[in-house]
């Protein structure tokens, strides 16, 4: 990733940040990101973040695991090594359900978490890039990106300064 130019406004409470997001969005600035110590309710809507599609990963991998588990049990119990256990039929589909359920949950869950790590670019050993001090403790940061020359830096600063920010600064950073 290369360095980009940002305008960073930091706040001490979530309510001012939320109002500031609404204001800058109403003036057609797009919010690059918000950094906060906890997920702020209503911010998804205010920022215009689309609802995550990660549950699809759960669904698709879960279904694949379900099919795979049934196939594994059918193959081992009916085709590869049929064994008479208490006179039960080789294909005892009902008795295969608990293992099928467990594998569906296991692989569905693990794949969803893996997808979150991939989408959020989280991996062990990654060096954290904090845009402002205290965003994992008690500060909230609203970040706008200066995309190109048409970005109205003066107006953006003005909006943020009047929004109750503790501090507004321009930064070059990698995020």
């Amino acid at each position: 990733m290369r360095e980009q130019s940002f305008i960073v406004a930091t706040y001490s409470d979530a309510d001012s940040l939320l109002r500031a997001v609404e204001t800058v969005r109403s003036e057609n600035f797009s919010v690059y990101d918000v950094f906060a110590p906890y997920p702020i309710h209503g911010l998804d809507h205010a920022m215009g973040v689309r609802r995550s599609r990660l549950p699809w990963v759960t669904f698709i991998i879960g279904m694949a695991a379900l099919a795979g588990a049934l196939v594994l049990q059918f193959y081992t119990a009916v085709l590869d090594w049929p064994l008479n256990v208490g006179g039960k039929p080789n294909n005892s589909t009902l008795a295969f359900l608990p293992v099928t359920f467990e594998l569906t949950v296991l692989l569905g869950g693990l794949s969803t978490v893996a997808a979150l790590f991939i989408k959020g670019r989280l991996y062990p050993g990654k060096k954290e890039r904090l845009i402002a001090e205290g965003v994992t403790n008690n500060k909230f940061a609203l970040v706008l990106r200066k995309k190109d020359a048409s970005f109205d830096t003066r107006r953006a600063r003005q909006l943020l300064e009047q929004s109750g920010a503790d501090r507004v600064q321009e930064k070059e950073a990698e995020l």
Partner: protein
Amino acid sequence: MSTITFTPRPVAIGGAEAEVLRPPRWVDGNPALHDITDDIARPLEGKPGKGWWICFGIAFAALLNLGGMITWLIAKGIGVWGLNNSVGWAFDITNFVFWVGIGHAGTLISAILLLFRQQWRTSINRSAEAMTIFAVLCAAMFPGIHMGRPWDAFFIFPYPNMRGPLWVNFRSPLVWDVFAISTYLTISLVFWYLGMIPDLATLRDRAKGGIKKIAFRLLSLGWNGSHRTWARYEIVSLVLAGLATPLVLSVHSIVSMDFATSLIPGWHTTIFPPYFVAGAIYSGFGMVLTLLIITRQTMHLERYITLRHLDMMAKVTMLTGMIVSYAYLTEFFVAWYGGNIYEKYHFINRATGPYAWCFYLMVLCNVVTPQLLWTKKARTNVAFLFIVSIMVNIGMWFERFVIIVVSLHRAFLPSGWGMFYPTKIDIGILIGSFGLFFTCFLLFIRVLPMIAMWEIKGVVGHGAHKMALSDDEADKETAHA
């Protein structure tokens, strides 16, 4: 220069025009965000107190004892236990079922209460999940050491092999157990870790350097508080909670099928899955109460683990205790009404036979004790709750012992009857499993954040709560704090 007007957000009002219910408060006082971080991170940064060292010393001694006992067991074989031809499952499987049950409360608190949006879970979910993981570890140990040849334990997994290929028997509840317990352990571990990532990042940013900084940096995966990640993170937490909810119900149901699918009187009954799940949650809440009362006293976290939390947990304990009592009654009723002479004899033997004292101890702890929790005074008396929680644990251990040993010792033919007497090794391993559990838990509260800081910050009055109070009410509270 144009001026910007900020329209005030509609605030829920306490006043004449609109009456709103005050949202319940789950943290005492009105701590600022950095106070929450300080309060929860402080126990990890200072030196542990005397109380912690005493508890740890006892637990670690029990763990060492476990190591010695298991070494002896593996060297000599399971003949060192009191098992015999009549009673082939005793302390080992009792402990297994007991510990799996303990774990269930953790998942109930972290997953099911998340789906029900119960905010009181936020202070206790982290430690309850940790309890789940350590309890399931203790549980998983028992089938392993019961095998006689634990070095062949991997035979329980289906893998292509040169023995036929001889696959596991997927129709057997014992194989279902393998899948249920491993899935439960894995998903609980992932859920627990995922919930901790933001807090690990907070600790990383607090750490001045050295090994702590390196470890927290490695574990926090570069988390930087981005809301785009938060949005995904919350969805994933919900998905995992949705998966963990049926999972936890399935685990003890499957454990109960180890018994229910056999023909032994006292085991062969369809009531077992719901009965075991209710018992699991009951015993688990007993253990959560024990642990949280110890930690809130030794770690001085009374502000976050309040009497209201203890009250809620006591209510769940009481409810599930009554479900368990109802199941006991149903079992006796069906034994009488069903007309099966073996079943009938089993229940007469349970209440009047040589192990009757275990049965009455179980009734005392699981039927009578929860009835003491009807008054609020009882539910908010810490010392009383601590005693109740210990009683619950004792009662549930004996419930499993009664189900397993009393059923086996007089099954069908009187010529096959026998008695089980525990040996020193049986008792030593039981105590040792508590050592393993408490050692893990005490280390956990020393090195990892035992309360979810970010969740507390989300509910503590910088969001929903503050907005619901009128300004002067909020000021009053701040002044009061």
